[in-house]
């Protein structure tokens, strides 16, 4: 795997290879010095063009634990505020360290544009617009497999803002690729047309999507992404779609996932978020290991340059 632009384009064996490798990196976290020299001497550039706390932190930790040099650029601190185009910023960074670029952007397709314009670099998508967030989907799949032992044949319910969610698109692709049945639900204003192309079934009522589910993925209601309010109020959203203990009882003792950050009392009740079925903190922990596996896998495909490290 030379880069990771999305789950689209990834094969099932490639995805499984990452999930199989990840436990190795979980073990690294347990060591007294949680560091392995796999990426020693390499540079991993973090180009975060959209505010991100947890994904950025997770990639930074993954980079450090692999002994690579992290190089971080965020809009507030970089020349992006000086009207430089993101391509020029990326080219500048790539001239310093043409290695691995982790990119997060508001814009769909930004990682693909980077990969096209800087062919020497390996690009890892850390979330682009409404499109994909492949490492999130991989860590979600890893977490589900860790708790349920498999993905194939499971029924997974995804509830929330399906229209704007890149977490949804990547998860829909990966879970169906690995043989799960994906059912989803959200307000009609936030369900895009043609979901069958992603291999998932939409339901108007969350109860129908949740019925007999083995895992439930609750999506964040992203007020900041909406063009005009698509829901009348957070209170009503909670009434109609919030994952409460009552709704969770419709599932087959499903585990509960959430990509964070949580809006307690909006898409999920605190009782569920903090309850025994919640694996939300496992997701965060697994995220570092899965991202280490992704970076290591990509580094393996890149020949080391003379003079590197």
């Amino acid at each position, binding site marked *: 795997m030379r880069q990771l632009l999305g789950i689209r384009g990834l094969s099932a064996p490639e995805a499984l290879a990452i999930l199989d490798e990840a436990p190795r990196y979980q073990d690294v976290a347990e060591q007294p010095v949680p560091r392995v020299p796999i990426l020693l001497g390499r540079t991993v550039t973090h180009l975060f063009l959209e505010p991100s706390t947890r994904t950025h932190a997770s990639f930074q930790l993954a980079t450090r634990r692999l002994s690579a040099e992290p190089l971080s650029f965020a809009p507030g601190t970089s020349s992006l505020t000086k009207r430089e*185009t993101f*391509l020029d910023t990326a080219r500048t960074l790539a001239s310093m360290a043409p290695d691995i670029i982790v990119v997060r*952007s508001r*814009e*769909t*397709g*930004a990682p*693909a*544009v980077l990969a096209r*314009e800087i062919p020497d670099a390996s690009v890892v998508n850390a979330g*682009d*617009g*409404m*499109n*994909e967030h492949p490492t999130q989907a991989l860590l979600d799949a890893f977490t589900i497999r860790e708790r349920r032992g498999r993905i194939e044949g499971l029924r997974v319910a995804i509830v929330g803002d399906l229209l704007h969610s*890149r977490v949804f*698109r990547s998860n829909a692709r990966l879970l169906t690729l690995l043989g799960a049945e994906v059912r989803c639900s959200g307000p009609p204003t936030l369900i*895009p*047309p*043609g*979901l*069958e*192309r*992603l291999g998932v079934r939409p339901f108007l009522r969350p109860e129908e999507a949740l019925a007999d589910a083995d895992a439930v993925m609750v999506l964040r209601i992203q007020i900041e992404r909406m*063009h*005009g309010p698509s829901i009348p109020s957070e209170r009503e959203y909670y009434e109609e779609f919030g994952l409460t203990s009552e709704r969770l009882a419709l599932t087959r003792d499903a585990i509960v996932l959430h990509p964070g950050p949580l809006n307690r009392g909006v898409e999920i009740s605190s009782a569920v978020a903090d309850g025994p079925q919640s694996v939300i903190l496992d997701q965060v922990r697994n995220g570092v290991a899965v991202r280490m596996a992704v970076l290591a896998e990509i580094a393996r495909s890149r020949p080391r340059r003379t003079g590197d490290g």
Partner: protein
Amino acid sequence: MAEPPVLIRGARVVDPAAGLDGIRDLRLAEGKVAAVGLGLVEPGDVVFEAAGLVAAPGFCDMHVHFREPGFEYQETVASGAAAAVAGGFTAVACMANTDPVNDNPSITAHIRQLAADAGLARVWPIGATTRGMRGERITEFGCLRRAGAVAVSDDGLPVRDPAVMRRALEYARLFDLPVIEHCETLELTGDGAMREGAVATEAGLPGIPAASEFIAVERNIALAEVTGSRLHIAHLGTARSAAAVRRAKAAGLRVTAEVTPHHLLLNEEAAGGCDTAAKMKPPLASEADRAALVEATADGTVDAIATDHAPHHEDEKKLCFQSAPFGIVGLETAVPLVLDRLVMPGTISLADAVRLLSVGPLRILGRPGGDLKPGSPADITLLDLESSTTVRPESFRSRGRSTPFAGLELRGQVAATWVGGRLVFSR
């Protein structure tokens, strides 16, 4: 400057207005068609051998953007006019979204002067419908017309307020000017970047619903009905828009419409890979819509094929899909596309193509031409239906290079173009 008479010898002359399709000589003198017949050569004629080629009345692209004044890095009147004649268009009508906006006669006159200096295609400015294209107060249609404007339009900034639109349509009757409207409901478009539907959902791009267009089409047709005015609908992009135009015509309204080659030949799938050369307004439609647009073109609902030639700088089109501007170039690809993809398969006849590219748009704009009668302007488009070309943006005369047809091999191309009896392009 007197041009010597030109004799285009032995061409297949296609003049649908005269019901003519046959081998003829075509004699041009003093900027006009002097004669159509056989054995017309006279001493002193500049003879152009055209055996095996098709001569048609000069084509007119009634919807282009020439960016000057204000955005000369994207296109100038001269570069646009060069692209026009190379693409077989002897005349174009250019939209008003320059900087400053063409909302007053001095800008109109300036554009006409730039076109005269270039000396290639006829360039007819379209005045803005409202001052600054702000959608509030209508412009001086009379002054604009006297300065050379052939229509009014706010194009990409459609008139939102129905009262302003009504006023524009009513007032235009004084001058019999067509009001050209880019039909879009901006509130429904929102931040949309491509047609809403399964392809946009899969691509993770915000969608533009079809209703954004057809609601505006239906509103504007209703206003054309209550005012009895001339309304021209720019670039049809949905089946429902085409059906509305068909109904309006059947009801006897003075409504006309154009369609672009890209809306006839591509559907939304072309944008699914985030290729910015497939980003334009209206967005590429569903396959059902595309097929309905072809049908409307073949059955006479559509009056004109226009390109909406919208050049942008390469750097702008290199951005991500959402940030990249809407619009692609079309002047240098339209005629080969129409010949190869519509005429060769028999979807429309060659006479239909000439009607849609020449007579149709010229009648809407109230300009002479569109036929080869003696006394008509000596604007001629000469076509070679046999030879093939590959679309190579790097060799365009236009400063814009963004086209979804790059690399396509097309049979049928423009062999030569005369404007006012003067050879302005030959391959």
